[in-house]
């Protein structure tokens, strides 16, 4: 039997970071239609940091969670609609319950890779409500495979139907992906997936390494649209998997068209590896920090790369955007001395 890979389309979620969370109704309508035409089975929609994350801290989104999800819901018939949630930002009462009432089919519950036990309430609730619920371990490059497994086992126990390792910083090399994915695949009873970022130019290579190690979910975005240097480019990984003789059940030409005709016109600038995103990959810092770090660098007249290297040394986690200003301020003081 041919091996099959389940592709999750996070274009309208991770792409939100690159848009500074300014997706419009038209963007959502056009892309959800395109994704459905291509045969995408699951599309995740919302603020880059998920339900309840639209904030002064991370950036306010133009549309509310409810608006984004209801626009997508109206368009999607065959494709399932999913949301993303990080406990600590979104809550069941304020965010998840309303999203379920709007008709989401699936949920990704994410935590920093060492903090899986904050996802219990949310995974259990989503499963009780019948959602396909995935556990996501963010910044998973930061801890060894054995520790990742312990965290993944917790999410499995809460009821997740799959675990997705996120390379939030684009810091992995393929060997490391293979090693960690293998550990999870060998010991979990549920599916394993990988979500890569392209800071070191490894997004596709890392997705391939994950598949070779036994992952059967790949999470990516059209044209690589996403935080930092961008994500695993979906039309590319689908082409590569085709070439490897692996099924995705997706229409490659339509995926290419979606990328060229829909996403290219939404993007403010082409997704590229530049000195900032490259440094953030090297430092192992969450890609989503880039726009805020650039602002802080300008404001305090310091090199944005120094900010990233310092953040890397401090091992900051995603969500800790408030520390950027502090680091920039300290660096500028140091320069003046």
């Amino acid at each position, binding site marked *: 039997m041919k091996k099959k890979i389940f592709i999750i389309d996070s274009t309208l979620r991770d792409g939100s970071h690159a848009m500074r969370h300014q997706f419009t109704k038209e963007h959502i309508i056009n892309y959800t239609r395109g994704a459905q035409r291509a045969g995408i089975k699951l599309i995740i929609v919302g603020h880059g940091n998920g339900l309840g994350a639209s*904030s*002064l*801290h991370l950036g306010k989104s133009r549309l509310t969670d409810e608006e984004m999800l209801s626009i997508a819901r109206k368009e999607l018939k065959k494709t399932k609609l999913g949301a993303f949630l990080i*406990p*600590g*930002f979104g*809550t*069941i*009462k*304020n965010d998840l319950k309303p999203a379920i009432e709007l008709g989401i089919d699936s949920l990704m519950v994410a935590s*920093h890779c*060492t*903090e899986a*036990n*904050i996802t*219990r*309430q*949310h995974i259990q609730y989503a499963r009780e409500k019948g959602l396909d619920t995935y556990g996501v371990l963010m910044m998973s490059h930061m801890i060894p495979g054995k520790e990742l497994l312990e965290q993944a086992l917790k999410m499995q126990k809460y009821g997740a139907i799959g675990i997705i390792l996120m390379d939030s910083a684009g810091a992995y090399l393929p060997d490391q992906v293979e090693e960690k994915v293998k550990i999870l695949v060998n010991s979990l009873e549920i599916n394993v997936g990988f979500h890569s970022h392209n800071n070191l130019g490894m997004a596709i290579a890392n997705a391939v390494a994950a598949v070779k190690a036994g992952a059967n979910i790949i999470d990516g975005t059209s044209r690589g649209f996403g935080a930092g240097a961008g994500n695993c480019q979906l039309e590319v990984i689908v082409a590569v998997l085709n070439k490897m003789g692996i099924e995705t059940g997706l229409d490659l030409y339509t995926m290419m068209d979606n990328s060229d005709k829909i996403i290219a016109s939404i993007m403010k600038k082409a997704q590229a590896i530049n000195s900032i995103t490259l440094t953030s990959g090297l430092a192992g810092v969450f890609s989503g920090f880039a726009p805020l770090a650039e602002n802080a660098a300008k*404001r305090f007249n310091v090199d944005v790369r120094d900010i990233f290297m310092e953040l890397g040394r*401090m*091992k*900051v*986690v995603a*969500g*800790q955007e*408030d*520390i950027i*200003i*502090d680091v920039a*301020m300290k660096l500028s003081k140091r320069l003046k001395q």
Partner: protein
Amino acid sequence: MKRNNKDKKIKVGIIGTGNIGSDLLIKVQRSYLLECGIFTGQNPDSEGIRRAKKLSIPTSFESIKAIESNQDCCEIVFDATSAKAHEKHASILKKLGKFTIDLTPSKVGKMCIPSINLEECLEEDEVNMVSCGGQATTPLIKTLMKVHPETEYVEIVSSISSKSAGMGTRENIDEYTQTTSEGIRYLTNIPKSKAIIILNPAEPPIFMRNTIYAEIDDPKLDLLDREINSLVKEIQKYVPGYKLILGPVYENNRVTTMIEVVGRGDFLPVYAGNLDIINCAAIEVAEEYARRKLLK
């Protein structure tokens, strides 16, 4: 304040022998107004119980029953269990006529931030200490509102070290953010608020840090600066490690202020400022209650 009966102390009971309870015990022992009459939990083998026994503190593993069966053991009760357990404890403690200080996010009693509403809280049977993030940020938001009553929205982000977040916080993270946010609205009258919590596993552990963002169009920064600095000094009286580390600064129509809380290192090390601030606040309430009793 003068005291007329010098050696007398008011007895307190502590329910819950985890991080919060154990830290409270140390703070009670340091107090010249309070003494611990019972330290009670559920687990006879808990570290907390063992430590308390060594200090010759009366202990029990029958939780609240220890207070029911020996009502003279305390006048004030700290509940450091869980929101669910506290919902059951609340009515029992009320019947027993204890002054209850609840450290869980149950929201049963009146929400209390000592620098804001200590006076009214002392007239209640029971008060709730909101959350560590609530203790750290609400007074500052109250000050923002005093200078800019037109403010519509405020947002707080508390980053705490993973090591200082016990299972209670982790398993009830939604209650934590919701209680914090509701507490802010209730105590400052701001129409909209949002609370975010982030657990940070970095080693060495980070100090508790709280960022407050307020949407203000034309802020009186000098006045804010003065008011906030004097508030910080006020809070330092009961939370010595409370520090203003940034701001108030203004950009993009918002005022940002950052507070760091360094713990006293009583039970958990100094990084656990989150645990320290809620316990310092709880002790402040208990001591004021005791002071008035002793003066009567």
